[in-house]
């Protein structure tokens, strides 16, 4: 429902009780990313540990969620066990519309359930149900049982669940959203596991009147036409993001074999076309998005003698293919999907998991670790070994894997090999595009390639102008922060320009917000960084391992001095935003 206040459900899973709060601040924080930061500043505890039961796990949507196409994502925020600082993760699926139709702008979960439990909410109900029988169960089997536990609203509900990795508290544990989407990065699964929540079921079971005034339906139609008739639809629906594998490989920017290479002729067997031709079953969509960028492939497994098979459906995208494919030297699409299938089951973030196993492989080659630690011999290209290793990593089978699951650099501190740990704030995203991306992911708010357009800048600009490059990062961030406060899919950023967002907000009744987007965008950006700074963020907390200085891209060898200067200047500018002036030495 369109209302100026935020309608927030606070749930204490220790008691199973909740409370509805109406919160002001719409024109300052908009919703989504801004609202999540506001809620953490109100209910979070910067000085307490990430897994203190008082810490909130926050889910927030935006003022346009459900009202316009591609406004279909949800923000999850929490204090991360990856770096013990405030963070955000974003996911699609049905979560956003389900929360909208539960008539909530945000859900804030605190406390810790006495036993492993499921939280179920809707417009008219709140229930915490014992689910101790799901302990240690993989995310796929759990999903089947959870659907039987909560039979209502099939198709109009969202199921958020964790696998064993989340229960183990691994910093690479994701939250699975409706089987094929994820709050993947920074350990959201661990934050949920710390609440002893195996699943959160959100029933979208109410409806609202149309916004007052004329024009809404016509504006919707205009935006629908814009998103379905532009090149965006073809790009993301057809081959989808895996089309970029060939592109990045062609410009020597695709990480292979733990970033020992940035290009390889074997790309033809694992590019977007190969995945579509060999494995693609169908496309799926987040609720409210007609683009349908979710690509679902299949694997067929022989389980016994004779002709006994079963099959699984596995979603793929550019990033998981990079992480479980090129980064591990695995070049057959079905092999990549088999590794991803295991990661899905154990509830492991695929990007982090793949990059961590790539490091473990190189560490094996250098004799820093052996099969005594990895339990299976690891070598680039050995997909069967990686399937087993992914299971060990997600379940924390031994001390080595439990440590690796907290972050590659944590393992490197003990075993060595920090120089070739491909970590930029967290395990790298699949863009070895150049200095600006390396600096930007290292210090970016979410340590995500989507925090800024640095990977795109790298591909277009070779001037090595520090001021110009950092100006670009600083100027690019507020618009993205505003879009993730709506909460729109960042694939739609070319369609939802500032002017279009203003018209959309205006037509549904948020007139003041519509008139002040630049100011609000900046206000959200600053609030997010300030909240993070309260939990300990400093640029010097994050360094860039040596491997990134050895990379060769289309521009040639990485310029170490330029990279260092970019990181230093970007860090200084972020701290200036927060209100701390740091002069370079």
């Amino acid at each position, binding site marked *: 429902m369109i209302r100026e206040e935020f309608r927030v459900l606070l749930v204490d899973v220790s008691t199973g009780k909740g409370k509805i709060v109406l919160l002001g601040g719409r024109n300052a924080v908009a919703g989504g990313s801004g609202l999540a930061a506001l809620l953490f500043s109100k209910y979070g505890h910067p000085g307490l540990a990430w897994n203190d039961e008082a810490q909130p796990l926050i889910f927030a949507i935006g003022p346009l969620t459900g009202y316009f196409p591609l406004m279909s994502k949800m923000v999850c925020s929490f204090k991360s066990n990856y770096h013990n600082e405030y963070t955000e993760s974003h996911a699609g699926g049905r979560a956003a519309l389900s929360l909208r*139709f539960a008539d909530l702008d945000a859900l804030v979960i605190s406390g810790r359930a006495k036993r492993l439990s499921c939280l179920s909410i809707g417009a008219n109900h709140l229930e915490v149900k014992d689910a101790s029988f799901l302990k240690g169960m993989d995310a796929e089997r759990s999903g089947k049982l959870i659907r039987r536990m909560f039979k209502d609203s099939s198709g109009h509900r969202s199921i958020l669940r964790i696998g064993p990795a989340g229960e183990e508290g691994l910093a690479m544990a994701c939250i699975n959203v409706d089987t094929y989407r994820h709050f993947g990065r920074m350990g959201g699964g661990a934050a949920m596991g710390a609440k002893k929540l195996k699943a959160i079921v959100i029933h979208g079971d109410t409806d609202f009147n149309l916004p007052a005034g004329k024009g809404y339906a016509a504006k919707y139609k205009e935006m629908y036409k814009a998103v379905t008739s532009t090149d965006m639809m073809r790009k993301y629906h057809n081959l989808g993001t895996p089309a970029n594998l060939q592109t990045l490989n062609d410009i020597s920017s695709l990480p292979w074999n733990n970033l020992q290479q940035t290009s390889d002729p074997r790309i033809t067997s694992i590019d977007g076309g190969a995945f579509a031709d060999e494995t693609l079953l169908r496309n799926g969509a987040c*609720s409210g998005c007609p683009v349908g960028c979710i690509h679902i492939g299949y694997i067929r497994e022989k389980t016994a003698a004779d002709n006994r098979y079963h099959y699984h459906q596995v979603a793929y995208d550019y990033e998981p293919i990079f992480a479980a494919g090129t980064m591990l030297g695995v070049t057959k699409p079905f092999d990549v999907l088999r590794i991803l299938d295991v990661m899905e089951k154990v509830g492991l973030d695929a990007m982090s998991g793949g990059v961590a196993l790539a490091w473990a492989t190189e560490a094996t080659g250098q004799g820093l670790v052996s099969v005594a630690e990895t339990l299976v011999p690891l070598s680039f290209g050995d997909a069967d070994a990686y399937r087993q290793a992914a299971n060990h990593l997600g379940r924390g089978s031994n001390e080595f894997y439990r440590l690796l699951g907290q972050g590659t650099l944590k393992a490197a501190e003990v075993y060595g090999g920090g120089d070739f740990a491909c970590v930029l704030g967290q395990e790298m995203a699949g863009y070895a595009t150049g200095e600006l991306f390396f600096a930007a992911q290292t210090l970016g708010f979410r340590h995500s390639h989507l925090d800024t357009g640095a990977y795109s800048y790298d591909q277009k600009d070779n001037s090595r102008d520090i001021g110009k490059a950092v100006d670009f990062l600083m100027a690019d961030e507020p618009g993205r922060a505003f879009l993730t406060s709506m909460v729109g899919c960042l694939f739609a950023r070319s369609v939802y320009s500032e002017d279009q967002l203003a018209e959309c907000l205006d037509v549904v009744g948020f007139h003041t917000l519509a008139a002040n987007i630049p100011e609000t965008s900046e206000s959200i950006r600053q609030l997010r960084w300030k909240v993070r700074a309260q939990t300990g963020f400093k640029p010097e907390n994050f360094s860039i391992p040596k491997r990134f200085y050895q990379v060769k891209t289309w521009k040639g060898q990485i310029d170490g001095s330029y990279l260092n200067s970019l990181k230093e200047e970007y860090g200084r500018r972020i701290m200036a935003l927060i209100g701390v002036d740091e002069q370079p030495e």
Partner: protein
Amino acid sequence: MDQCIGCHSCSLACARQIYKKISWDTAGIRIHSTGGLSTGFAAARCLACDPAPCAEVCPTGAYSRRPGGGVIVKQVLCIQCGKCVEVCPLDAIYQDRSGRVYVCIHCGHCVQFCPQDCLEMVENGSAQEVSI
């Protein structure tokens, strides 16, 4: 429907344009997963039965047969008894908390909002799945 990606654009369009609602429930077509997202989607919508059990059971004449199949609904005559919802073999009629019922009126507004061409508006009798 094999091409359905589960975006709900059809339901949202029906609710918005016909019933003046923001909803994926209060619509003449509603998309459900058929056992988790892995098994695809089904659309709950009126298949234009003839005779129409909902019209036959309606005690006030709010539902009446439409020539050629389907029903004409006069909301002012509806006493919100829910009999039509109970008798529909396809779960095609939705009743909200206030008691109002929602059913497809075969207007075709949803068709233009399906990005996958799952929906089409055809003359009654030519759709393969409905035998009249």
